[in-house]
């Protein structure tokens, strides 16, 4: 058991972080809060990747003169470099949307926006109530 914990704690921390972010993404009403959650969520996944790359006693994956020292695995680093960029791009677009939404609706709280949409067009209301039933099924796909 101890071994299991020692061997895996790094992974579990990332899972915890990820769940915190995930929770914020689906539960928070504030649109910016969701984005903050999204950032935590994604960074957690990046942490997981970086954890894969770690080799005991390894050094940074840059060629050294000295032979015989194990290097850490460079591949996840590469992948995460790309993923970080994707993440920041998504954040930028999301923030742009939020700015526009604020301009149009005057608020960045999702529930208020939904109420406003209900007044202006009833179609959104059906979505709103359906959200519950559908999110509850969100995990069944697994």
């Amino acid at each position, binding site marked *: 058991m101890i071994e299991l914990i020692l061997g895996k704690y790094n992974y579990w921390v990332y899972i915890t972080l990820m769940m915190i972010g995930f929770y914020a993404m689906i539960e928070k009403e504030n649109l*910016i809060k969701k984005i903050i959650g999204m950032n935590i969520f994604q960074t957690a996944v990046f942490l997981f990747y970086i954890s894969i790359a*770690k080799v005991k006693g390894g050094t940074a994956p840059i060629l050294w003169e000295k032979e015989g020292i194990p290097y850490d695995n460079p591949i996840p680093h*590469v992948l995460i470099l790309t993923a970080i960029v994707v993440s920041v791009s998504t954040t930028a677009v999301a923030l742009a949307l939020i700015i526009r939404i*604020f301009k149009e609706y005057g608020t960045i709280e999702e529930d208020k926006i939904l109420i406003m949409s209900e007044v202006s067009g009833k179609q959104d209301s059906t979505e709103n109530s359906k959200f519950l039933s559908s999110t509850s099924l969100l995990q069944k796909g697994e």
Partner: protein
Amino acid sequence: MIDLMLLLFLVVCAIAAVSMKDLLSTTIILGVYSLIMTVVWTRLNAVDVAFTEASVGAGITTVLIIAALSRTKREEEGQEYGMWSKLLNPQDLKLTDKQSPLLWLTSLFIVLITGAVLIYGTIDMPDFGDPDAPANIHLAKRFIEESYEETGVPNFVTAILASYRGYDTLGETTVIFTAGISLILLLRRKSYICDTTIKEKEMKEHIVIRTISRILIPFVQLYALYVIAHGELSPGGGFQGGVIFGSSIILYVIAFGLEEGRKVRIFREMGDLLNSTGVLIYAGIGVLCLLAGGAYLEYDKLPLGSEKMASSLGIYGIEIGVGITVAAVMITIFFITARHER
């Protein structure tokens, strides 16, 4: 031990960021979270990633969110009822569907299930740091052993990033480009009325900032170029360098304000032009490789001296392309999001 503490810090920051009401504080905490993450990654020897996270996660993301906050709202509203009161006496509250305790429970349930599945997955995982884990022996081995020979780049990360998986990086640059164009599409207005006068007045008083900026900016820019150029040898590369360069321009704008609309227009035109130019350089180098008879992005085949030389120059080329696009997009994004419209 320090690693464990750092990880604990991460969790604390994450919880704090999610639960605080003041969005500005939240953003700052998110920045702190990113910085700690940077430290964690440095300790995990992922220097390139840490570099990027420091400039992007802690830097750009924070700046962007603050810019967005300045154009929206600072406080998170609603949810004046705590979760427990929601759960215990929901009938007292006037709640919309979205606020119902059932929904909160559902979200929690989803999150917990996902987490449980993930933890279930970890049972069969190789232990942390296991050098014989499949991830570390299959592809990685060859990269570590041969990439210097094959590409002439001592930084394995750069070698893979720019050469073996250079196409992913083109995709990455395209993503940035897409984000830049998306923001132009979403936020740009034709009329450019900038309330620069106010800014200038405010900034005039900050003589210290101005002076420091004036001294600092050239060095920052120089450093950016260095990072781009030295991506092969040390951590860093086009992306990080581009971010730094972009930051220097942003710093300039913050410190000095935008004196005239004309300058804005110049920046804007330049930004648009450079957005495309950067990606075009990257994609174009690929096409040149095609024309030279190689595969796409096969730098060796470029007619630039020896294979190693060609490969090296090709990698420089794309790094520059990445740098230009990143810097240009950053500037564009900053101008678009930070501009106040009255």
